C-alpha cells in the first residue's frame, strides 16, 4: 500500500528528526547493531541522518535563480536558470510565461521587478504546502558598484508572503538590464 510521507514539505521549515525516522531515544532492536556494515543501516546512522537532514532543510533557499532584466526593450525579466525545492528549470523562460510550478516575473520599472509564487507548491510526492518567504539575498553582475534590494510581501492578504520585489541599485539610481543571482528563503 502506498504511504503518505511523514511531515510537511521542506519549505514549511517545520522539519524535525521524527519526519525522517529519528527519535531522541532511537535504538537498535534488542540492542544489536549491524550484522554487515555493507548491507545494514543502524539506528545510530538513522539518528545522525535525520538530524542532519532536518538542519539542512531549515536553512535551504526555496529558490535560487539567475535573472536578466529587460529594460532597454521593456519586457518581463528573463529567468536564465532556476533551482527550486520543487524542481529545476535549466533552460530558462520568459518571466511572464513560467512553466507550471515556477514563479512569474513582472517588470515594474528600470531595475525593478517582482517574483510571484503560487500560494502553494507541491513536493515530489505531490504534498502541497503554502509558500511563505521571509526574504532574499542577491548579487548583481555589472561592472559598476551596485547592489540588490529584495522585499517580500503578501499580495493576496492571506498572511503568507508569496512575492519578492527586487530592485537593482547603484549610487545614481536604478540599474537597467542587469543580470542577478537571487536566493529566496
Amino acid at each position, binding site marked *: 500500500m*502506498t504511504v503518505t510521507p511523514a511531515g510537511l514539505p521542506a519549505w514549511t*521549515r*517545520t522539519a*524535525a*528528526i521524527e519526519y525522517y525516522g*529519528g527519535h*531522541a531515544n*532511537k*535504538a*537498535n*532492536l*534488542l540492542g*544489536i*547493531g*549491524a*550484522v554487515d556494515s*555493507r*548491507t*545494514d*543501516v*543502524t*539506528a545510530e546512522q*538513522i*539518528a545522525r*541522518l*535525520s*538530524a*542532519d*537532514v*532536518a*538542519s*539542512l532543510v*531549515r*536553512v*535551504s533557499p526555496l529558490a535560487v535563480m539567475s535573472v536578466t532584466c529587460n529594460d532597454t526593450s521593456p519586457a518581463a525579466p528573463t529567468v536564465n536558470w532556476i533551482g527550486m525545492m520543487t524542481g529545476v528549470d535549466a533552460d530558462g523562460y520568459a518571466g511572464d510565461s513560467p512553466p507550471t510550478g515556477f514563479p512569474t516575473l513582472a517588470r515594474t520599472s528600470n531595475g525593478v521587478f517582482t517574483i510571484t509564487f503560487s500560494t502553494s507548491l507541491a513536493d515530489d510526492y505531490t504534498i502541497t504546502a503554502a509558500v511563505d518567504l*521571509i*526574504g*532574499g*539575498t*542577491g548579487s548583481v553582475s555589472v561592472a559598476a*558598484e551596485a*547592489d*540588490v*534590494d*529584495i*522585499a*517580500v510581501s503578501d499580495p493576496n492578504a492571506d498572511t503568507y508572503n508569496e512575492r519578492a*520585489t527586487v*530592485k537593482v*541599485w*547603484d*549610487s545614481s*539610481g536604478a540599474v537597467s538590464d542587469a543580470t542577478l543571482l537571487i*536566493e529566496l*528563503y
Partner: protein
Amino acid sequence: MALGGFAPLPLRLGGTAEEGITAAQYKRLCADIVAARRVKPFAVIAIDQNSNSPQIVAYRGQNGVGVGDQPTLTWNGAFTVITFANSYRDDRDRIVPMRLTGARGSLAGSSAGGRVKVLHVYESNIVRVAPIDFSGAVLSTATYLVVIR
C-alpha cells in the same frame, strides 16, 4: 523482502523500489546529504533595524526555527551586533560547539538602495552588520536579510 533477524533496525538494504531501499539508493542519499551539509548556511535571519534598536523578524537556523533558537541582537552605534552562542543543543539534545565562518546580506524594501555591510572575524560567533546607503550612512529604518555561514 526479508529484513533479517534484526528488523526493524538495523535496516537491511535491498528489496524493491516500493518496499525497500537499495544499497545504490542509500549511497546516493548519503553522498547528496554530505554534499549539501558542506555548503549550506548556518542560519538565515530577517532583521528590522527599527531606528537602531534592531529586532529579529524571522529566524531559521540549523539549530532550530524561531525565537527560542535565535541569536541576540544589540546596536553598538555603528553595527547591529549578532551574537550566537558558542554551542547549541541539537535535535538529539546534545550540546555541540559551533563557529561561524562568514556572512552576507541584502536590503529589503529600501527607498534608494544601498547594501548590507558585514564585519565578521573568521571563526568567531559574533557578526556585525549594518544596512547602509551608497554614501555609507546607516539606514536606521531598513529591513534586511542576513545569511550566516
